[in-house]
């Protein structure tokens, strides 16, 4: 029990820390693309850890108490986590592409090879 709580607290601290870092990066960075870097990576990673805490908690209590409610909770958190990871990555592609095509240029860029490329569709 103590070991479980120790792991839960560690996972939750890591998760909340990275989520907070994502929002701080959203405030600090200068343009859309760097903000996307901060939010996509950090919030996905943080959510993976907070959901892992719920999954470990669910499986542990499923094994101890035998109540299938906890097992179902862990399985559903797993599904939600998978949805979150896939949709986050795809959504950030969509935003980056829309931002570039609607004319938001990266600030302070040392190289921009997309500007010369002629993409037609």
């Amino acid at each position, binding site marked *: 029990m103590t070991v479980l709580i120790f792991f839960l607290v560690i996972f*939750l601290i890591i998760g909340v820390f990275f*989520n907070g870092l994502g929002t701080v990066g959203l405030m600090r960075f200068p343009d859309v693309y760097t903000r996307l870097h901060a*939010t996509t990576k950090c919030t996905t990673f943080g959510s993976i850890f907070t959901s892992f805490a719920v999954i470990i908690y669910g499986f542990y209590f499923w094994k101890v108490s035998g109540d299938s*409610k906890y097992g179902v*909770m862990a399985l559903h*958190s797993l599904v939600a986590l998978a949805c979150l990871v896939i949709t986050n990555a795809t959504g950030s592609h*969509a935003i980056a592409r829309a931002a570039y095509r609607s004319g938001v240029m990266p600030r302070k860029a040392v190289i921009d090879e997309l500007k010369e490329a002629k993409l037609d569709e």
Partner: protein
Amino acid sequence: MNLFNVFLLPAVLLILFILTSLFRLVLGPSIPDRVVALDTINTLVVAGMILFGAAFQEVIYIDVAIVYALLSYISTLYIANYLERRTKDK
């Protein structure tokens, strides 16, 4: 020691982070900045819903998080699609 509190405090902290990312929605100079803020709020709300579901110890609450993750993604894609089409029409 009640396990209820372990999940509740991080969930409330995630709600405070939503307040932080709302500032980007207020300040954001361009529309993609605001969409990024919306996307961050979506992710934080889903993570918070999973934690609240564990704190209230109800299975049905986590299903809300699944539905929410899949539906909020549609709105992000829709705005991105609209931005692309708008510049192509001009």
